[in-house]
C-alpha cells in the first residue's frame, strides 16, 4: 500500500497515493531508545518545536500562518512503542483541489522544513523563557493524570505491575526528569534527534508520488545515520505486590487488574492472543461485558485490553466500592471459564468478525493507514487484511483455551473513596 524509498541511511520515506481523502496527511516519526530522562527531554522538545521556529519566533505568528493555510493542522507529539520513544510531527492540510483559490501544498512543505530544521535558537541554544514555559506545560500534563481517576488508576497499576520497565515509563517522562532539563541539554537532544534518530516519513493523499518524493528529498535534508538498535525489554520486571488498595475522595471504585502473557506482537501465537482478548473482554459480546455488566449489573464498563508490546492484559471496571470482591470474583471466573475451554463457536465467530472489521475501518483513515503500516512493516512481510483474516480464521477454541492457560494474574489495584 505504501511505496517506500530511502532518503538517507536510517531515513525512510513511505508514500501512498489515494483519492479517498479531501486532505493530505504527513507523519514524520523520530525514534530513539526509551528511558525516563530522554522521554522527558523529547516531550519538552516536542512542545518547544511546536511553540515557534526560526521563521515564526512568536507562537501567535506561527499559529496565524497555519490558520491562513486553511487551518493546516501541525503538531509535534511524544509517544512510545515497546522500548522506543517516538517524537513525531503530524501535519494535515486540505487538498488544493477543494479550495476556490490559493495553492497551499508547497507552502506546507516549506513549513515542514522550517519546523524541523530551523528551530528558534538564541546564541546557539533554545530560548530559556520558552524552555521554562514548556517544561511547566509538560509538568502540568503529567500532574493532570491525578485529576482523572481512571487514568490515575491505570497509571498506578502499571507502576506496580512493571516497575522500572518500558511499560511503566511515560512518553512525557516524570516531574523530576522534566525539572532537570536546561536549554543546553534540550539543544543536544534536538541535535541527536536530527542526526541520530531512526526516521520514518509518511505521506497519504491524492498526490503525485514522484513530484512529492522529489520535493521531500529537498525539504528534508537528513544525513545518513546508523540508527541505534532498540532491543525488546529483557529485564525481568515482576509485579511489586499482588494487591494494592488506595483511597481518594471519590464515589466510584476503580478496579484495574493486570495479567501477563508470554505472547507478544509478531510472535507465532499473536493472532490467537488477539482472539483470546476479544472473547475475554475486548467487545460488547465478550465475557466481561456480558457477565460483569449485563448479567450482574455490577458496572457500566468492564473490558480488557491486550498490550502486545509488553505482553500484558489489563482489565478495567468502575464499580460500587462495596462490590469489590464480587466483581473481582466474576472477572476471575471469566478467565477460569476460558481456561476450562468454555468458549462458544458464536464467541469465536463474533470476535473474528470484529477484528477484521476493526482493521478495515482503521484503514479507512489516513492516520490509520500510517499507524498500521508503521507497526506491521517491522514484521518483514507484506501487510494485507487478507493475511490477517486468514490467521484469525484458523484460530480454534483449543488455541484460545491454550492462550487463556498462559495468562497469569499478577496485580490487582483498587482505587476508591475514603469511607469504603
Amino acid at each position, binding site marked *: 500500500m505504501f511505496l517506500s524509498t530511502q532518503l538517507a541511511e536510517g531515513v525512510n520515506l513511505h508514500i501512498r497515493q*489515494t*483519492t*479517498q481523502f*479531501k*486532505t493530505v496527511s504527513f507523519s514524520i516519526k523520530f525514534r530513539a531508545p526509551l528511558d525516563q530522562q530522554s522521554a522527558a527531554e523529547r516531550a519538552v522538545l516536542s512542545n518547544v518545536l511546536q511553540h515557534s521556529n526560526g521563521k515564526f519566533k512568536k*507562537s*501567535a505568528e506561527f*499559529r*496565524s500562518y*497555519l*490558520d491562513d*493555510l*486553511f*487551518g*493546516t493542522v501541525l503538531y509535534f507529539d511524544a509517544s512510545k512503542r515497546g522500548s522506543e520513544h517516538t517524537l513525531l510531527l503530524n501535519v*494535515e*492540510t*486540505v487538498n488544493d483541489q*477543494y*479550495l*476556490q483559490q490559493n495553492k497551499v501544498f508547497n507552502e506546507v512543505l516549506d513549513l515542514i522544513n522550517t519546523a524541523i530544521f530551523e528551530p528558534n535558537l538564541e546564541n546557539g541554544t533554545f530560548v530559556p523563557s520558552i524552555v521554562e*514555559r514548556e517544561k*511547566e*506545560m509538560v509538568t*502540568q*500534563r503529567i*500532574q*493532570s493524570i*491525578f*485529576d*482523572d*481517576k481512571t487514568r490515575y488508576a491505570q497509571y498506578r497499576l502499571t507502576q506496580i505491575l512493571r516497575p522500572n520497565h518500558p511499560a511503566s515509563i511515560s512518553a512525557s517522562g516524570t516531574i523530576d526528569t522534566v525539572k532537570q532539563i536546561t536549554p543546553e541539554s534540550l539543544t543536544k537532544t534536538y541535535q541527536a534527534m536530527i542526526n541520530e534518530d531512526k526516521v520514518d516519513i509518511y505521506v497519504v493523499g491524492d498526490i503525485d508520488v514522484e513530484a512529492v518524493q522529489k520535493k521531500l528529498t529537498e525539504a528534508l535534508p537528513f544525513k545518513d545515520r546508523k540508527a541505534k538498535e532498540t532491543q525488546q525489554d529483557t529485564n525481568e520486571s515482576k509485579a511489586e505486590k499482588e494487591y494494592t488498595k488506595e483511597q*481518594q*475522595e*471519590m*464515589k*466510584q471504585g476503580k478496579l484495574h487488574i493486570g495479567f501477563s502473557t508470554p505472547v507478544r506482537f509478531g510472535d507465532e501465537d499473536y493472532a490467537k492472543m488477539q482472539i483470546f482478548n476479544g472473547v475475554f473482554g475486548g*467487545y*460488547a*459480546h465478550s465475557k466481561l*461485558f456480558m457477565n460483569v455488566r*449485563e448479567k450482574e*449489573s455490577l*458496572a*457500566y*464498563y468492564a473490558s480488557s485490553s491486550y498490550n502486545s508490546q509488553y505482553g500484558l492484559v489489563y482489565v478495567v471496571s*468502575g*464499580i*460500587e466500592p462495596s462490590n469489590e470482591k464480587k466483581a473481582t470474583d466474576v472477572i476471575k471466573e471469566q478467565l477460569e471459564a476460558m481456561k476450562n475451554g468454555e468458549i462458544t463457536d*458464536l464467541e469465536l465467530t*463474533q*470476535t473474528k*468478525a*470484529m477484528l*477484521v*472489521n476493526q482493521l*478495515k*475501518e482503521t484503514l*479507512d*483513515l489516513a492516520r490509520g493507514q500510517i499507524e498500521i503500516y508503521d507497526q506491521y512493516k517491522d514484521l518483514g512481510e507484506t501487510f494485507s487484511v487478507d493475511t490477517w483474516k486468514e490467521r484469525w480464521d484458523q484460530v480454534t477454541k483449543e488455541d484460545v483455551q491454550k492462550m487463556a492457560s498462559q495468562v497469569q494474574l499478577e496485580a490487582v489495584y483498587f482505587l476508591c473513596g475514603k469511607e469504603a
Partner: protein
Amino acid sequence: MKTIEFKQLDETLFYKKLPNGLDVYILPKKGFSKTFVTFTTKYGSIDRTFVPIGESEAITVPDGIAHFLEHKMFEKEDGDVFQQFSEAGASANAFTSFTRTAYLFSATDHIYKSTETLLNFVQEPYFTEKTVEKEKGIIGQEITMYDDQADWRLYFGAIENMYHSHPVKIDIAGTIESIDKITAEHLYTCYNTFYHPSNMLLFVVGAIDPTEMMAFIEDNQNKKEFSEPVQIERHFEEEPTCVAVKERELKMDVQKAKVYVGLKAKQTDLKGDEMLKHELSVQIALECLYGRASNFYTDVYENGLIDESFAYDFSLEKGYGFALIGSDSAQPDQLVTKIKEVINNAESLLTSDSLERVKRKKIGFYLRALNSMEFIANQFTRYEFNEMNLFDAVPVIEKLTLEDVTEALKTIQGEEQQTVFKVLPSSERAQ
C-alpha cells in the same frame, strides 16, 4: 429519490421522505470500505414535559429517562442486540444528548444485515419491570463515574449556573434517585411519543449503492405499521436572559483548579439559514478573540494562567445556547478577569484581518471534517433537526462580514449573561 449535489466538495447526497414520515439520507463515499449508519430521534434529555401521544394533558417524566430508554432499547426478549451486530462484524453504539438520541453502527461487511438489525431493534421496543430494574445498577454506575469526573462536573456546574428552569441544566443521565422512579410504563409512553418515524432521521454514509440501499430501507419500513404522525407538543417554562447564579464553586479531589466562564445566549429562537449564519458567526468571533493566534491567548499562556486544557465552545439549540471558555488554572480568578476583559471589549478586538484568517481556518476545518463519516452523519442530523444544511457551512462562512460576527457576538455579550463556575482542590490536598 432526490439528489443534491455539492460540486465544490465533490459529494452527492440522496434523499427521500418515506410514506411513514421517516427522512432517509444516503451519502456514498468512493474508495472507503466502511459504512456508517445512524438512526436518530429528535428526543433528548430536555424533553421531560410533553403531551403523550393520544392524550391531552402534559406530563413530566423522571429525569434521565431518554438516556435510560436508549440503554433499554438494546435488550430484547431473546437477548442483547450487541450480539447480533458483533456476529455481523459491526460495531454498534448509541448516545443521548440534550436534544437527540442516536443509534448507530459501523461495519465493512454485511451492511444490509446490520442496517436491518438497526432499523428493527429501534422500532421494536421490549421493556419489562424486571429488565428495567436490572438496568438501574448499570446506569447508577455510569452516573457515579461522571460524578467523579471533574471536567464533567465543571461543564454541568457552569450550565446549572446559567439556567433558572430550562432542563438543559439537568444531567442527561439524571440522578440515582430520579432513575429509581422509572418504570416500564414510562418507557413505553416516551417511546410511543418520540420514536414515531416522522420524528426520526436515518443517515447512511459510506461504501454503498444509494439506489439499492434506499430500496432496502423502504422495503423494511413498508412492512411495518405505524400510526398517523402527530405533532409533538413539548412544554418549556419561560427562561430569562440573565443567568441564575453569577458565581459558584465546587471542591473536589483534584490537584489544580478548573474554571469556566459561561456566556448565556439570548437568541435561541432561530432556525434554518439564519441559525447557521448566527452560529458560525459566534464561533468565528470566539476563535478571533480566544484562539491560539489571539493576543489574549499569548498573554494568558505566557503568564501561566492556562495550560493545554484551555478550550472554548459555543452550543446552540432551540430554546437554549451558551458559550464556555476556560482552563485548568493555578490562578482561576485572574484568568476569569482576562476572559471577561476580552468579551467586554470585543468590538475593538475584532479586526477584519483576524476575521479573514479565522474564516480560512474554519473552512479548512469543515473540509477536513468531511473525511470523517462519524462527523458527517452526526452533524448532518443535528443540522437537519434545526432545518440547516451541513454542506452549506463553507459557502456561508465565505460570505461572513465583520458586521455579521460583531452583531452575533452581542447576543452573548451582556454582563447579566455571564457566569463563573470553578472546581477547586479540596482543602486536604490543596498545595
